[in-house]
């Protein structure tokens, strides 16, 4: 299969039903993507496929064919969110951290400052057992301020749903 991995073209031979997670870890040797549950519940295996976060434990690698795949190794190590996770101690044991960073990257890079509620919603698919999430939220907000300045316009609140309680 051919795809773009962290910006570079990549070609490899893998069974099409093999999980993208296993292809990344075993065939590509990129072990920063973690497995926590195998059922898409914990988000530790989150990667970006064509820019959107997905759980690589539920994706047959064939579906990534021709796609742009970004793993934690695709961030340079000086991404504002990586630095903020460090600064705010958003990572304790670290096993959920790569997934959290990839799930939150979009929020950090978007020009408008996310509300705390928006951060919570964006990370609801990433379980962390160490931090109680508070330090992670602080890191995301701090990274946004770092990247866009503390006075970035705050995002419009998610439109109130017409339906629902």
């Amino acid at each position, binding site marked *: 299969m051919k795809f773009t991995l962290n910006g570079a073209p990549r070609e490899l031979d893998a069974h099409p039903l093999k999980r993208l997670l296993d292809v990344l870890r075993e065939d590509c040797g990129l072990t*920063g993507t973690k497995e926590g549950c195998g059922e898409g*519940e*914990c988000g530790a295996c989150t990667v970006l496929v064509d820019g959107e976060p997905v759980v690589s434990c539920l994706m047959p690698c064939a579906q990534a064919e021709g796609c742009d795949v970004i793993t934690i190794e695709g961030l340079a190590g000086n991404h504002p969110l990586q630095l903020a996770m460090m600064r705010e101690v958003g990572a304790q*044991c670290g*096993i959920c951290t790569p997934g959290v960073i990839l799930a939150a990257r979009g929020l950090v890079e978007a020009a408008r400052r996310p509300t705390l509620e928006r951060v*919570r919603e964006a990370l609801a698919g990433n379980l962390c*057992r160490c931090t*109680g999430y508070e*330090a992670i939220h602080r890191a995301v907000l701090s990274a946004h301020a770092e990247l866009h300045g503390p006075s970035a316009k705050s995002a419009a609140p998610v439109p109130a749903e017409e339906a629902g309680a």
Partner: protein
Amino acid sequence: MARAVAGRQWGSNRTSAAVSRYSAGMTSVGTNVARKDGMDRATGAAKYADDLRFPGMLVGRTVRSTIARGRVTGVTLDFDPAGFTVVDHRDIPGENTIALIEKDQPCLVNGVVRHAAEPILLLAHESRDALIGANVRIDYEREEPLFDPERSQQVFKHILIEKGSLDRGFARAEVVVEGTYTTGAQEHVYIETNGVIAVPERGGMALYGSLQCPYYVLKALKALLGAAVKDIRVVQTETGGGFGGKEEYPSVIAAHACLLALKSGRPVKILYDRGEDMVATTKRHPSIVRHKTGLTRDGKLTAMQVDVLMDGGAYCTLSPVVLSRGVIHAAGPYRCANTRIEGRVVMTNTPPNGAFRGFGAPQTQFAMEVHMDRISETLGIDPVTLRLRNALKPGDTTATGQKLGPDTSAVEVLKEAVRRTSFKRKRAKLAGSGRGIGLALFYHGAGFTGSGEVMLGSRAGLETTPNGVRILVANTEIGQGTRTMLSQIVADVMGVAYENVDIAQADTSVVPDSGPTVASRTCMVVGGLLERCAKQMREQLKGVSPAEHHARHGRLHVETQYEAPPGREWNDKTYRGDAYATYAWGCDVAELAVDPVTHEVSVAKFTAVQEFGRPIHPAMAQGQIEGGSGQGIGWALLEHVVMRDGAMANAQLTNYVIPTTLDTPPMDVVMLENHFPGGPFGAKGVGELPIDGPAPAVVNALRHAGLDVRAIPATPEALAAAPRLAPSRSGDAA
């Protein structure tokens, strides 16, 4: 007499600059220095067990019992064994046991099955697919299993704590309040499951794994492998969370991997998937705690009788010490002259329960604190006043007769929590609204119980390196920040920069046995050993920097061993004396709403005021409190281990649910300082304290919201069925 708490307050709105009063020169203690391993985590470079590969490595698998009790009558391999390594109990060169406190737990079943998911047979193969496809049939002769701890006749440990005279205490009582409180099992849900790799090397064996206590594993492997393997070393890999779940269990999976590696002569990795990890590994002990309490009408405790029953599961593991910590904390942070606490931990045919953050104390303090709010209702004295009248103060004695030192902060944490949350005003305002606010006051002993530290006799070392100094301890980094916090202590004592201190990987062939990474002991006890090492080394260096000394004279090495502080006494038979070196103190407040349509609870705000000496790294300490609080809220409301036929039936993260970002409330964390002279820079321990308070605070808030809850988890299903309390019973008229 209230006494001001020394030092600063650290809160959620902390400032990042902190000035240490301990060292005139370079200071890192009390500041939020960069975690030693922070960038490795943020870049994914940190290597966990499953990230390691060795040439020729096989994958291992455990075949487990499908019944809870009986005998194995036949094992049939329904596959072509070519390419497979197969191990059963006959392949064990030493003792068939997982050596811990007792040697009752076999490594592999030899006939007798005592719980579901008990290991019977081990397989290894190069290909995971081949391994998955290998069918093994086990035939059994079934026996009737026992799941009800109240019916169990087999007691792993019985403890009695007596102080004063219950008869006298109840004779003085004007009111007696009784109650029974139960807590459920809890799964650790470290996000990295258990995993190890056994690697044969130079006639010996190296075991790499996700674990908290390398020397526990080493002890178990020595008993298992006996003389067959001379040199065994245990190496901790990056560990994706522990919470006690990787205290004793890794000895089991390590034993299995070593047996397969020994037989095949090749490296063998065993990594549990989430389902196996949940079904097979330890849980927090379920508990039933009964209270009978005598009081005067004005709310002074005159007699406390507490009966604690814990379900140990099929083997002893750490149950005796879990019970020990549980009973010692069972009377809560209160003063009572006449106390009798009796505890038992018994056998049932479920997988063994074991260490989990808090180690018995969360169970008993849940009971105590929910009972206190029921007493408050009975007496018509508000929960704050009732607690203030009885809270332990410096100079008071605990149930074991320990006289408390000046670093006793029950009153201070309580008052601060009440003040910050406007507790009394909200308590009055919310009454009858379907919302509630509740609090819990609690404490937690730091370090091993009783004479535990003396028996451990921990050793820690320091050595010079070309860059500075290296810490040599067996204490592990499992997320809580061991590497960073110990480096801060050493840096400041030696007067060197934090950046010039590093820490050796926890490899038993390199580091001395500084004891297990448990019991909120790493900072206070091991940090204390390192403080002594650093002082010694500083003296020996005579003003020369460690790197310079290293360049001129080669490696300089110092080592210290634990010595009991003078005057500390403990009697293991009578359970009298100084149970812990000291205690940390906390008061949590939960504010919540109960949805009348779905009975779902949303915790709107959580306040944690905690005192644990001095935070060495305030941001990491705050992380311990936030994380422990989240885990405690999960235990209180969401986390329900469903057992069927002796096995966890909801063993997957979809069905055993832990809190997500949206279930975890905003937290207001306050760290009061009250320095403990026996700990490095005044530090005590903070790892476990935060899990003691959330469940009773939440349940007391549910009580305030009108629901009579005495058991957790308080799931919506339980709340739908819970008796409703009349608003007049909220007890806050005073």
